[in-house]
């Protein structure tokens, strides 16, 4: 038997009434990778994670974890551990007791489990807080305790359910870096659920983009960002423009459904027409985004495109101005017809 992947989902489905939360999903997660499941709410990503964790059972299909059939196994018989969205720390136990709980259940002696719990807390830089109650910690600290509590059991796979969702922006960015470096150091498989495409792209080795219970695209962050395969992925990951075949052809692209990233569209001043067949567009909105500006431009046909322009050159454009569009042919990305 060849073991391919630490977690393998084969044609896994989970239905809630008439809703197909997870619909015949095939997925292989490789040992040691940082795997992100990205999608809007209701896309099936969280249900998929819960199926791996054992909190849901599939209606059909197979789940294999570390070479073992996992469907039908309760959570406490699976070699995976979860960091919950709300952290789920036990309020009646101290931080140390929370972290040591899994070891206690396994029957380890007090001295040994206290030592291991302390090591785990040190790993997440929380040593010294072992005697506190979870209610005395900040959101970021609670998140680390949840992480330590799962890591102390040395799971084959660590499941993270939107673990950074409740943190403020600065803390979230710090934790992204920290989680990534922790994962590298431990060489552990992380499966990470998020609805934040920036988070998925910056942390993951591979991303599965979920849409209506199915995996719409699976690939590296560059793949899903630069070369989306469907209209949904193009729109959800990085808000690309999706052009119908006729519009694409008019802009100098192939006569097919394509996506076009906002930063790859060039804008030229009225007096510098690039080609005879270049299209003109009117700027209808400019929004400030810090290092760049996002412009909405309207074609003659009424079609709107979003265009991203560096802050340094944005001063030469103003609302209502008519400009020429310049799109390099390499910028067009073919989408599957839907």
């Amino acid at each position, binding site marked *: 038997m060849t073991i391919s992947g630490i977690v393998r989902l084969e044609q896994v489905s989970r239905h809630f009434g008439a809703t197909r939360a997870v619909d015949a999903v095939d997925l292989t997660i490789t040992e040691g990778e940082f795997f992100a499941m990205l999608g809007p709410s209701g896309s099936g990503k969280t249900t998929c994670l819960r199926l791996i964790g054992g909190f849901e059972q599939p209606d059909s299909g197979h789940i294999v974890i570390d070479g073992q059939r996992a469907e039908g196994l309760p959570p*406490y018989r699976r070699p995976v*551990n979860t960091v919950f969205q709300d952290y*789920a720390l036990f309020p*009646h136990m101290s931080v140390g007791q929370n972290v040591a709980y899994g070891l206690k259940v396994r029957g380890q002696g007090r001295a040994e489990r206290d030592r291991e719990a302390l090591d785990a807390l040190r790993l997440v830089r929380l040593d010294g807080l072992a005697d506190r109650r979870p209610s005395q910690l900040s959101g970021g600290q609670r998140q680390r305790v949840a992480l330590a509590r799962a890591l102390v*059991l040395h799971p084959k796979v660590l499941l993270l359910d939107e673990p950074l969702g409740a943190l403020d922006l600065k803390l979230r960015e710090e934790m992204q870096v920290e989680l990534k470096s922790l994962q590298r150091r431990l060489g552990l498989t992380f499966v990470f659920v998020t609805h934040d495409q920036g988070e998925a792209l910056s942390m993951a080795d591979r991303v599965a983009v979920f849409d209506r219970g199915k995996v719409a695209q699976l690939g590296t962050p560059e793949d899903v960002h630069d070369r989306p395969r469907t209209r949904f992925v193009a729109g959800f990951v990085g808000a690309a423009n999706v052009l119908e075949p006729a519009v694409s052809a008019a802009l100098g692209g192939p006569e097919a459904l394509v996506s076009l990233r906002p930063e790859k569209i060039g804008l030229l001043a009225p007096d510098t027409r690039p080609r005879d067949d270049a299209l003109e567009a009117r700027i209808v909105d400019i929004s400030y985004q810090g290092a760049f500006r996002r412009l909405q431009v309207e074609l003659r046909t009424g079609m709107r495109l979003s265009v991203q322009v560096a802050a340094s050159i944005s001063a030469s454009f103003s609302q209502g101005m008519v400009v020429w569009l310049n799109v390099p042919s390499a910028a067009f990305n073919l989408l599957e017809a839907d």
Partner: protein
Amino acid sequence: MSTGIPHVARSTRLSDLLVLRPRLLILLLLLPPLLWLGIIYLGSLLLLLAQAFFALDDFSGVVVYDPTLATLAQLFQPANLDILWRTVLIALVVTCLSVTLAFPLAYYAARHARGWKRPCLYLAVMMPLWSSYLVKVYAWKLLLSREGAIGWMAEALHATPLLSAWLALPVLGGPSLSTSYTGMVLVFTYLWLPFMILPLQTVLERLPQSLLQAASDLGATPWRRFVDIVLPLSLPGVVAGAIFTFSLTLGDYIVPQIVGTSALVLGQAVYTLQGTAGNLPLAAAFAIVPILIMIVFLAVAKRTGAFDAL
């Protein structure tokens, strides 16, 4: 000094005054209930309890208003201590039985019942509280009596020997269920069970699902999870329910008159002492005991951390 800025039309309306002075609003709101609680309830209770520090003159049968601890000391006479111990034990057994019966039901109602089942369960639990207490107790006396429904059912199921064996037990048994401690405990448990179910259901409803999942995730079997997580976190509900079942049993004097043995319990003792015996000081001394017991009970509950996770 005029700033030249015109005032918005000044109004002396009461609502404006109350918005600007929130303390006044709180005072107005709380004054009636505080007066009620302070004078009518606590005041009369304290007056009653103060009686315990006087004594009855044995010859004249008149209360002597000289402060003394002699009446309180009478509680420690063997006959009176018997009454106290008996009452506390009955209240303890009723409380334990209530928790045992209420927990599964409350757990189901809080965590599994969906749709129409939930209001139905709620109604089923509350319904007994709508009918008269006396009717229910007399109904139970009939159910428990020698020729009652329970005896009849035991006969139909060929379980009469079992019932007889139970009635032959020391202390628990008696001539019939309706004249035994078993019967009394059953009736008390029936009466107070809703007061245990409701607070338990409330704490169990508030228990986040993710805590249970986290325990499973960390390797705890369902039983282990129940002992380590569910039980400790529902302790505040158990304590809240126990305050009802325990104190209501401690003070009741009607059920023991109708169902149970002829031995007195605390409520009956107070009733006879202040009535036929006319010994108000000793009745007051008895009345202090449940209050002290509840204070100790709450202190112990607080020490075990029952309220920490609230």
